[in-house]
């Protein structure tokens, strides 16, 4: 009985504190739906979003970014690199005194998100889809959040870029390998790479799983890609083309036999921002060359 009373009183105490907290939280969500103001100090926590803000002409307002925000390179001098989304903590974000935080719903750490929300800083979390339509929607939402209505030109540029993608008669099967140190992952369905490969007229060699999975020799042989696709930094880290050809299982595939290895800038490929059209055209050119 004693124990029961104790447990009950604990719950009541905790719950009452909780009540007070949620009250505070509701206020912050109301703040989010306020009219956007310009001349913000913006923290962008996603490469694509960073590019959109910069392309809309608000690069000067960005005071902090995450590690994936590599473009435009001029940001390095003006915005603080806050590190990787997964290991980021709240204080460095607060330290750049942002008035607006923009993030994507992908790979965000829920505990950090909770802290950001309770900090009272206006925060927008966008749903990110790795499609052309998704990118256009993202551009529109980001533009509205930073108080800029002149975003149509970005969407027009994407369309204009995509028109330059030339169809490839025999669609090459492309395997994207994400190499970080000794970790090799391949991208399955519903990844930005798979989406970009399709846009560029190829097809993703992996069809039987989603997201990223560790590379296994058998899976590589089974997928039998015509082309291996890397981030430039990843390919360098893996020891260039030589290293890539030595990866387990690669020698047994068409890509390995014909030495078809391509690489592009990581931010360009995975950003799905205003340069998504450019990225598709770039990849399309590389694929056409590699199928000759």
């Amino acid at each position, binding site marked *: 009985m004693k124990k029961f009373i104790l447990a009950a009183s604990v719950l009541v105490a905790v719950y009452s504190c*909780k009540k007070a*907290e949620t009250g505070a939280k509701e206020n912050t969500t109301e703040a989010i739906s306020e009219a956007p103001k310009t001349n913000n100090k913006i923290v962008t926590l996603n490469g694509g979003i960073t590019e959109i803000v910069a392309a809309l002409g608000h690069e000067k307002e960005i005071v902090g970014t995450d590690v994936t925000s590599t473009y435009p390179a001029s940001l390095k001098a003006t915005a603080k690199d806050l*590190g990787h989304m997964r*290991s980021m903590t*709240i204080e460095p974000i607060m330290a750049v005194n942002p008035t607006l935080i923009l993030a994507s719903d992908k790979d965000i*750490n*829920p505990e950090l998100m*909770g802290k950001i929300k309770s900090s009272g800083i206006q925060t927008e979390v966008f749903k990110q889809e790795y499609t052309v339509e998704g990118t256009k929607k993202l551009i529109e939402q980001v533009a509205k959040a930073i108080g800029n209505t002149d975003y149509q030109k970005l969407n027009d540029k994407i369309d204009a870029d995509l028109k330059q993608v030339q169809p490839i008669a025999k669609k090459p099967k492309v395997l994207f390998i994400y190499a970080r140190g000794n970790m090799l992952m391949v991208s399955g369905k519903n990844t930005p790479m798979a989406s970009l490969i399709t846009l560029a007229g190829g097809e993703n060699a992996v069809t039987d799983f989603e997201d990223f999975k560790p590379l296994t020799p058998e899976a590589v042989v089974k997928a039998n890609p015509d082309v291996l696709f890397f981030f430039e930094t990843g390919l360098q880290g893996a020891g260039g083309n030589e290293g890539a050809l030595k990866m387990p299982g690669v020698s047994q595939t068409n890509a390995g036999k014909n030495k078809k290895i391509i690489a592009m800038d990581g931010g360009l490929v995975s950003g799905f921002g205003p340069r998504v059209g450019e990225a598709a055209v770039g990849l399309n050119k590389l694929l056409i060359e590699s199928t000759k």
Partner: protein
Amino acid sequence: MKAPSKLYFYLVISAVLLVIIAVLSLNTGVYDFGENSRFRALWQFIKGDSGLSLSDKYVIWDVRAARIIMAILIGSMLSVSGTSLQGLFKNPLATGDLIGLTSGATLLAAIAIVLGGHFKEYLPEAVQFSLVGIAAFIGSFLSMMLVYRISTSGGKTNVVMMLLTGVAITAIGFSITGFLIYISKDEQLRDLTFWNLGSLAAATWTKNIILAIVAIIAYIILLPKGKALNAMMLGEKDAQHLGINVERLKKQIIITVALMVGTCVAFSGTIGFVGLIVPYILRLLFKSNYVFILPLSAMCGSILLLTADTFSRSIVAPSELPIGILTALMGGPIFIAILVKFKKSL
């Protein structure tokens, strides 16, 4: 000085030290209070000055103060749990992380997070935390029972068996937790770094209230047990003759330690070695007099973890070192020192 006043003196000294470190820690961090110097911002906050900006207030109170209090509570509990276990097993190597309690707690906490993820949204935050906390408690409790059953017979603990059981539980826990993290896609499970090296970055006042309640309950039961643990050193039979209810004492220690370790793991992952370092240092000063080292380990554990956490978030600013790296760095050599010292008796 007589013993009680001597203890009182040491407690006051360590409390003063803890307050000094806490104030320094409150003023450590990458956030810049602008022309408002840090101490002035702090003073304004204490006075409840309305001139303090919301961000300043948030950083002082919800970010730094919350984290400092969490470090104090968790450091204290880990340290006391180590001291109590060492009294129970009559061995300086018995700590929650070495005998597998933390792994057991991690495993069940992870399972609770993955399974609880399906209906988590409908529960208030406090209940979510409690769910994981309760699961972690069950995990550490089961590990504790297993270790005790396997390694203790007739009131004697076989240390090698105790440590090896811990190794086995840790291995099982690590593999299953790793697997859960691999299959859970949507970040519902914090990554392996958190579960293996710990972090205090996600401190909130809600968590601190739960931790404080657990600490108060556990300390009411454990802290007066110094004399009883001293008697236990003579052997269980002799303790029994001195009027100590040995079985009851064991049960109390097992349950409260499992509760403390479980709750700490649920909120901060695995922060190892705290329960080894603090009692070891205190033993050097006070021999194995539990009347002294039990209450002092509560204080010194806080000092140790708060210092370690302040370093962890300032060494590589703006990012931070997982705190478990620092505690292991301190704890590893001490572990070896204990092994060398007790080589003959192990």
